């Protein structure tokens, strides 16, 4: 009998738990440890943030589902990792603390045979002074509660515009090293469309602010893509969309301070500038959770498990951009020191960025961190689960399920406006996610036939279909496993 403990119940944690439970017999224990009581389908936060979808539509409680399906669930947060046990506990364990109910504050050593760390990122708002969701007229859409607040803020500004007051709207990244430009891109297009629906578009100045060097970088070094019969660069496509919608842009901007209605930033020229706004949605930087790890003698071994995020089978050798290789990226998401610990999704430490790193003339790093969105999170979680299942069933370590971001495709269906007949979406697929310049030397590291963009109503339908399909899958409804990650 094996016990698999999964930390986190986001996309990767939930995917791993559901596949493990489906494929392993009940004599094996699957336990999810998460401080959150709900599963949320994060990509639909965008629609919550424009008031087009109630937040209740994108989440559901985990406890009843896990009870019904035979998955253990502890609403607790991880405190520290003890992969060798300690003087009183022979098995490896994670020290966790319950966050609700009668047991709130109680700590427990949760032992495991296999550990999947899918704790995702910490939303590091503290890294930007004054960037606090709901304060200083700045908001976030990173969680459904943040998105609810963002809609309240946006609604108030729309009402002011209806009363005749002009407004400035600023959307993008809130730190020099932020990622997730795609989410901000979706949000700015949706906000712009909402302003038109409310007949106040001419009252608003809408501005994109980002740490990208060029539009359409998305933390993926940009893309060369097929668009209809054309081949174009992603920055040309996004430029076309922004110009068509009269959205201004500020690039190479490392936002470093937020005051009430003012974003201060440094640009790649080394200039310190500021941009005023009446409503802002700025994505924070992501960081690891700051977990500590200890060996059986209670010595600190954090560096064996973490480098901010968790260390896995990547090549972490420091090297210049020109020497970066697709082979640096992990394949099995297994910790090299403790082979029974895995970190799929966003929890693993990337070997380096994907976009070319850039510094301002003052030496400040201003470039996007690598994005790791829902689709790769699900795929990497499933392959980790499959390797654990094979190891348990075969009785020897198995790691033949592999999925490097350098050999994996992803689709980014960016909503560009809500509405079954009037909606729009920008569909961008890319293969591979991390460019492989040796395999595809003439197309910026990617397969042109599989890297394409499309704009239109179909994109909105696709995004809506994915919303319902993935919530159906997450609820483990009949034949849920037939829906791919």
């Amino acid at each position, binding site marked *: 009998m094996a016990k698999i403990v999964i930390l986190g119940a986001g996309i990767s944690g939930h995917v791993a738990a559901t596949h493990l439970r489906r494929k392993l017999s009940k004599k094996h224990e699957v336990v999810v440890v998460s401080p959150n009581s709900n599963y949320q389908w994060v990509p639909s936060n965008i629609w919550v943030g424009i008031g087009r979808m109630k937040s209740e539509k994108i989440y559901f409680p985990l406890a009843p589902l896990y009870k019904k399906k035979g998955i253990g669930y502890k609403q607790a947060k991880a405190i520290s990792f003890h992969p060798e046990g300690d003087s009183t506990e022979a098995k490896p364990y994670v020290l966790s603390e319950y966050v609700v109910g009668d047991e709130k504050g109680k700590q427990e050593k949760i032992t495991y045979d296999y550990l999947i760390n899918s704790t995702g990122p910490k939303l590091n708002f503290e890294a930007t002074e004054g960037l606090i969701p709901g304060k200083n007229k700045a908001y976030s859409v990173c969680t459904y509660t943040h998105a609810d607040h963002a809609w309240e803020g946006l609604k108030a500004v729309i009402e002011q515009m209806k009363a005749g007051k002009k407004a400035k709207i600023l959307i993008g990244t809130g730190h020099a090293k932020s990622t997730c430009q795609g989410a901000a891109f979706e949000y700015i297009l949706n906000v712009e469309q909402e302003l038109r629906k409310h007949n106040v578009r001419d009252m608003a100045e809408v501005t994109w602010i980002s740490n990208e060097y060029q539009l359409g970088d998305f933390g993926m070094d940009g893309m060369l893509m097929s668009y209809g019969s054309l081949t174009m660069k992603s920055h040309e496509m996004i430029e076309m969309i922004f110009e*068509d919608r009269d959205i201004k842009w500020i690039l190479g901007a490392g936002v470093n301070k937020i005051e009430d209605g003012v974003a201060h930033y440094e640009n790649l020229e080394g200039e310190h500038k500021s941009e005023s706004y009446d409503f802002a949605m700025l994505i924070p930087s992501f960081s690891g959770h700051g977990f500590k790890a200890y060996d059986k003698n209670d010595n600190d071994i954090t560096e064996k498990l973490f480098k901010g995020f968790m260390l896995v089978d990547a090549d972490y050798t420091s090297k210049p951009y020109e020497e970066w290789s697709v082979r640096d990226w992990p394949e099995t998401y297994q910790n090299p020191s403790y082979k029974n610990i895995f970190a799929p999704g966003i929890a693993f430490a990337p070997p380096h960025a994907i976009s070319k790193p850039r510094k301002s003339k003052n030496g400040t790093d201003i470039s996007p961190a690598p994005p790791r969105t829902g689709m790769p999170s699900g795929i990497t979680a499933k392959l980790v689960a499959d390797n654990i299942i094979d190891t348990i069933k075969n009785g020897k370590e198995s790691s033949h399920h592999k999925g*490097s971001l350098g050999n*994996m495709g992803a689709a980014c269906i960016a909503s560009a406006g809500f509405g079954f007949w009037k909606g729009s979406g920008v569909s961008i*697929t890319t293969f591979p996610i991390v460019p492989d310049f040796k395999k595809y030397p003439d197309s910026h590291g990617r397969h042109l036939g599989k890297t394409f963009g499309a704009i*239109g*109503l*179909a994109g909105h339908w696709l995004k809506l279909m994915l919303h319902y399909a993935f919530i159906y899958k997450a609820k483990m409804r009949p034949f849920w496993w037939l829906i791919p990650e």
Partner: protein
Amino acid sequence: MKRISPRMRFRMMNPVLQFFKFIILSIKIMVIVAGGHGGTRKVN
């Protein structure tokens, strides 16, 4: 600045044309995303 022509916009928002686009996009995305993944380090 209008960068998308009326003809292009019509094609982007026409439900009939976009229905076919939706089918094609769904298949293409399924092929790319569910079409497999693997490692990068062992080259045959």
